[in-house]
């Protein structure tokens, strides 16, 4: 196994591969058993706490999205993805599978990439949510957006917001240091048009500018 693709046990304090990194996750689960035995992360503990609460019917949720505080009335079963798309008019985040299999819905929660289709909106209150709409500063594109444009890192554009959010996180995680590593850590985001080589060029360019 190529060492720079996968963290060694001593740097497990790094963000863990997201569940959207399908292949990485499977390889890791098979290859590094130690991970499975590691104590639950803080986020997991919080999730377990959330499960124990009882919320019924629609309630007002307060979400911090792209630096703004937004209130939305929704049932607890509403996913973050559907809250964004159907209730907050933030349709940049896409639904490709609704099951965490494609990565089109990737957003950042407290800086970490997350599949918003597998995340309930009610559970991310109090966290900083960044969507594709929150990356650019006015008309000035985020470097990752500019790199996707320059390298033609998309065709139909439907997976693109997820790819870009994933790319931003991939760089900040330090998982875009080599081409092979970057390919692996961008493999949770499917692109049916086949823009992979261009996506790789875009993410690597941003990573190389540090």
């Amino acid at each position, binding site marked *: 196994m190529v060492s720079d693709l996968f963290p060694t046990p001593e740097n497990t304090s790094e963000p863990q591969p997201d569940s959207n990194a399908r292949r990485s996750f499977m390889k890791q689960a098979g290859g590094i058993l130690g991970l499975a035995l590691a104590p639950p992360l803080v986020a997991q503990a919080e999730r377990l706490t959330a499960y124990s609460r009882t919320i019924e019917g629609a309630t007002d949720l307060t979400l911090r999205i792209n630096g703004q505080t937004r209130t939305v009335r929704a049932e607890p079963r*509403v996913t973050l993805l559907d809250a964004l798309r159907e209730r907050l008019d933030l349709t940049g985040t896409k639904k490709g599978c609704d099951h965490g299999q494609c990565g089109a819905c990737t957003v950042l929660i407290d800086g970490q990439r997350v599949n918003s289709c597998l995340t309930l909106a009610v559970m991310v209150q109090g966290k900083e949510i960044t*969507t594709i709409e929150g990356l650019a500063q006015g008309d000035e594109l985020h470097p990752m957006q500019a790199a996707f444009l320059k390298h033609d890192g998309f065709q139909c554009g439907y997976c*693109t917001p997820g790819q870009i959010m994933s790319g931003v996180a991939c760089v900040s995680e330090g998982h875009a240091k080599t081409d092979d590593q970057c390919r692996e850590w961008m493999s949770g985001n499917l692109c*049916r048009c086949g823009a*992979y*080589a261009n996506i790789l060029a875009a993410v690597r360019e941003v990573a190389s500018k540090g």
Partner: protein
Amino acid sequence: MDIEPTFSKTNPTAGVVGQPMSRVDGWAKVTGRATYSAEYSGLPGLVHAVLKTSDVAHGRVQSIDVSAAQRAPGVLAIFTHQNLPKLAKTPNSPDDRKAFVSSPMGFFPMESDQIFYAGQPVAVVVADTLERAQYAASLLKVSIVPEATISSYLDPKAQLYTPKTVKGMPGVTKRGDAQEAFAGAPVQLTATYTHATIHHNPMEPGATTAHWEGPNRLTVYDSTQGVSETQKTLAAMLGLATEQVRVVCKFIGGGFGCKAWVWPHTTLAALVAKAVGRPVKLVLTRPQQFTSMGHREEQAQTLRLGATREGKLLALIHDKSSTTSPWDDYAETNTRITNMLYALPAFEGTYHLAHANVMTSTATRAPGDMPGAFALESSMDDLAYQLGLDPIQIRLLNYADKDPSNGHPWSSKSLKQCYQRGAELFGWNQRNPKNGQTRAGKTLVGWGMATASYPVHNSQGNARVRLYADGHAVVQAGATDLGTGTYTVMTQVAADSLGLPPENIRFELGDTDLPSTQWSGGSTAAGRVSSSVYLAAQDVWQRLIKVAVQDNKSPLYRAKIEDVMVVKGQLLFRTDPDTGEAFGEVMKRAGMSDIEGSALGRYGSSYEAPRAAANADPNKKDHASEHSMHAFGAHFCEVHVDPELGTVRVTKWVSVIAGGRILNPKTARSQVMGGSIFGIGAALMETTERDPHLARYTNADLAGYHIPVNADIPDMTVEFIDEHDPYVNAMGVKGIGEISIVGTSAAVANAVFHATGRRLRSLPMTPDKVLAAMREPV
């Protein structure tokens, strides 16, 4: 008629056409501002519809208990076959079906209690939120009395038959006596190739938002490759006049053929929207996508190839067996490419179909040509190895200087250059002529190549140009940009045609309120729409020249119209190009703030036909003769095969395509890489498994159905051959979207053969098949 102007004549020097411009819709796509069909959230009172589909593949609905669902909060209505509003026409009636431009199958669900395929819609639930609609749909209790199912053409109960026609082609094609030629051939190869069911799986599932703005006024935001086709078909089914239906599709999240037709969910969304009196959004779930918008059918092809000992082809007999639905004789037309790709004196092609409990399969990127090329290009590789020839050599030996299927000359063909350039880029001359002899560590390394070709399909459509006196322009055509770059390349074409910088052009598409044009499918859009746009700009110039020559203040006053030409926005005398003036001057003096022109652009033989007629010289026969029009190309592939695990990785890729004028090498390169990746997926991993007893898909989601991910794809090299084709259209453009996939799976299979010495003839070449082959003696 006059001979239409051509771009190469009016624009001999390079402008922005042919330049690697970044996408003009790119900003919208990278910022999340691009609006797809499920994202028109501002419609008043928008509600959500969810499909309930059948788990059973064949039977009759006995009952649907809606009581619990009806009581669920937020539910507005539940529709089943018992209360669905009636359609004016349905495809279930063959007579009605003729009224449809774009209906993919001879069946519309929920018209009766009959169930013909798993995943067939049995109910539609409408509720105020998506979650409530989904929950209510889960409460429906559907009882179906099952009947015996036929899962595919391989089912023992299936009955194979040869249809009269498939997609307008005869069920049996004979050219010469292929049987006799094969029987007498000194070299005979017989092999059967199989291809799994595969699904298009665009990242955006099928999605429709239907809004009745009045009793006879419907606007549909639909994820479709053709707004005009959807408009006409919906109007016929709903009993409306065409203009009473407006279809909008500004952005589409991929199509690849499955969004080229009007499938039932789109019509259902419009029907239930009318019934509930609210705008309705209906989005397919990913599993529903597998049973709602067609697929590429599973199939077996047997090729019998006869050749001389020197490797010259003598005969090809091509039999294809595949599954079709209970109602249609649908098959991809695989014999199209096998009949034309090489100089082949005798050909026989036969389709064998079997009805099964599955929806009708449909066009999937390069329908027919893609699997057809897999079989033919694998066989050609076999022939090369058997005779000790280089795979390129065997192809050059059988190079077709004219189209063998009809004897017509090619409008243009640069395939030899593709082979040569591809070989250079790949380093093909370093190839080890022996199989199974190259290793990198413990992995086996192999190289393979294959030919690509895709026909130029006849099509036509309109465009409109409005040029403003201040040097800006709005250019419109009701086309679709599937991610293929239509927005961008049409902006480039309009800019050069008008002599303006591209940033002064706004190109609009995806709306039936715009000038109508045909769908984006069959690699027709780039050539057709670019020609329409170019000719519409020429129409603007013709109108403006008429204004100038009547203006006594113009230097062109009283000139003959045919003596004036337009170069980069300047109206000039042909004989004295220093005399003339800019278009803005003419318009200002005439008090015109803008001027409009429009044109019909033609692509393929419909373009050549009027030109030939206009040129007709009874003494020169070839003027009126038809040309055979195809794009050509070659793919080269390196694989690494792990002999212990059976895994195949593509490690190097080169594609060289001759597709006429390349409007934008940046977007074209992306499109060709994408097609190759689609082909690598089909070669190595893509298969939708249908249970042989229940005729139900077992892996209908993106965890079970693998498409290539970033880590599966190596660096790829794409080049284009500079090619000038005067016959295809006014722009000289051939499409490249589909040729990019043709031959790709054969290139991979040929590389696997070179690496391992084992010929894999069953796609996808998954590790289990590779390992089984490795256990066989070479």
